[in-house]
Structures are given as structure tokens and as C-alpha cells.
């Protein structure tokens, strides 16, 4: 990407290395690239936070209040992208989902696909779990719901660990389709378990209020 002001190649940095003007980012810059990080699961979160604070200060729209329109706009754009990237990368689950998307499987999208289709047995199990929770809720049995939540939480953690293992192995062999599918299924399980836990939480709030 060339600097809009002096035409130097900014090579993706937030400011032009030559004239120091705030730079444009190519469309589709990844969250990892914003922090100059490799596409990898393991992130040093305290270092990320430090980098985030420094960049936030330098890119803050307040600093560009008197600048020309183009710079004001870029400061706003970069700040928005920076916040989104930080929010995603600092949190392990969000980071894992994002990384999977980089490998071509976007679990946020509604279309189904062979990579995403969960095994029938698993969906059956989720349905059973949700039915049991429904029974516990109808009986106002908070104890039982909490017991189920403890079990599901352990399984959610195990599924996330499995997904992370797969994502780490993909860093070494990025075109391993079987690993992408395994990571996708493991994160799919994380999603269904998280949904279950949200339901328990809502029930707890209702029961305690």
C-alpha cells in the first residue's frame, strides 16, 4: 500500500515510515496483521495489551481533530479496526474462532457446509441436554441445572483445548483439511456448550431475582 501523501510503500504499518502521516490500511487486513503478529493461536496477551494502548494513543481521533478530513477519517477507521482486533485477539475463544475463519470456515455465517455439519450423535446429545435443562427449569431445580452446567463447562473447556491443538498443528501444515474439519467440529461443540451455559445463567438470574 502506498502512502496517500508521499507515495512511499507503507507496507501495512499504521503510519508512513517516510512522512509520518497516518496511513491507509489495505481492505481485509487481518486482526493479526494490525498487531504485526503471525497467524498463530498463541498470543502474549500482556504484550498485546501494551501494544494496543500505545497504538490507541497514537491513532486517537482527538489527536487529529485539527488535521485535514482525510486524516480524521483514517484515524477513525484505524481506531475502529484496532479496537475490533484487540477485542478478538485478547480473548482465547474469540481468537480461536477468528483463526478458524482464516482457514476458511466461518462459523458465524448461517450457510452450512461439509466442514461445519456436526455429527448427528452430537446434535442428539445437545437436544437431550437442552431437554433435561428444560425439565430442571420447569421444576425450578436450580441445583440440578448447576450440576449439569459444571459438567458442560468441563466439556466446553476440553473442546476448546482440542480446537487449539488443531489450530496449532495447522500452523505447521496449513493445508491439512482434516485438521481444519476437526478444529471446526471442536469449535462447533464450544458454541453449542456455550449456548447451553448461557441458558443456565439466564435461569439462575431468573431464579435468584
Amino acid at each position, binding site marked *: 500500500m502506498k502512502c496517500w501523501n508521499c507515495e512511499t510503500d507503507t507496507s501495512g504499518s499504521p503510519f508512513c515510515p517516510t512522512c509520518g502521516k497516518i496511513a491507509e490500511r489495505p481492505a481485509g487486513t487481518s486482526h493479526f496483521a494490525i498487531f504485526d503478529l503471525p497467524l498463530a493461536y498463541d498470543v502474549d496477551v500482556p504484550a498485546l495489551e501494551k501494544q494496543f494502548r500505545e497504538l490507541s494513543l497514537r491513532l486517537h481521533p482527538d489527536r487529529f481533530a485539527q488535521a485535514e478530513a482525510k486524516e480524521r477519517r483514517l484515524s477513525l477507521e484505524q481506531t475502529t479496526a484496532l479496537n475490533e482486533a484487540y477485542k478478538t485477539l485478547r480473548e482465547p475463544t474469540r481468537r480461536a474462532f477468528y483463526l478458524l475463519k482464516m482457514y476458511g470456515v466461518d*462459523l*458465524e*455465517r*448461517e*450457510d*452450512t457446509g461439509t466442514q*461445519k455439519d*456436526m455429527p*448427528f450423535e452430537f*446434535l*442428539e446429545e*445437545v*437436544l437431550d441436554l*437442552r*431437554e433435561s435443562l*428444560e425439565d430442571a427449569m420447569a421444576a425450578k431445580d436450580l441445583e440440578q441445572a448447576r450440576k449439569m452446567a459444571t459438567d458442560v463447562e468441563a466439556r466446553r473447556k476440553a473442546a476448546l483445548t482440542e480446537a487449539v491443538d488443531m489450530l496449532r498443528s495447522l500452523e505447521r501444515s496449513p493445508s491439512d483439511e482434516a485438521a481444519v474439519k476437526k478444529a471446526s467440529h471442536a469449535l*462447533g461443540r464450544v*458454541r*453449542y*456448550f*456455550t*449456548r*447451553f451455559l448461557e441458558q443456565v445463567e439466564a435461569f439462575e438470574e431468573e431464579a435468584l431475582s
Partner: protein
Amino acid sequence: MAYSDKVIDHYENPRNVGTLDKSDPNVGTGLVGAPACGDVMRLQLKITDEGVIEDAKFKTFGCGSAIASSSLVTEWVKGKTVDQAMTISNKDVARELALPPVKIHCSVLAEDAIKAAIDDFKKKRQARQEQA
């Protein structure tokens, strides 16, 4: 976002909630999930040997739009032939319920559930024929 009156109606008075006997050779079970939200939908169809859907039941754990979508399709498929039911598309469901774009995936789920249930029924029938 406000739900349409039709969604609210199906959500408050869902039609055909329940279970059919999964082991009945004339019952097809479709089970689908939405990876975007972590919700699940089960749709069961009781189909005559002539291929007419005589009963439909569903159980959905999800938002109002997902419940309304599955409730609506159970009403629609009853009395239809398997081939007719296969032509029901998510667009029909979304239009009927006036679903907003962010809820389109709920209608996709309902369409997928019909197809999965019919698929299950056909597989069962084929297995039976091979045995005979």
C-alpha cells in the same frame, strides 16, 4: 428488533410440538443445528407407505424465529407428498413470517430439517426393502 405478528403467534402458540416414535419405520427424523448460535431443531415426519406426510412434530431450542419457522413448516407439510414437501424453501418461510435478514438462518434451519427428515425416512425404507 421487533418480531412480526406471525412470528409472535407461532412462538406463543407453537403448533405440533412433540415427539414421534423414532424407531417407527414410517417416521423420519431430521436433526439440525445452527453453528452460528448453537441452537438445535428436531423435526419428525410420519409418512405413509404411499409417501404422504400424515403427521409432523417438532422440538426446537432456539430463538422466537427458529421456533416459529419450525412450527410453520409442520403446518405446511401435513397432507403433502414427500416430493411436494421437498420443494418448500427457506424463502417461503422467511416471506411468510417476514423474517429480518439476521434471522434468515432460522428459516434455512427449518428447510434443512424437512430435507433431513425425509432423507432419514427414505434411508429407512431402502434398508427395509433391502432386507425384504
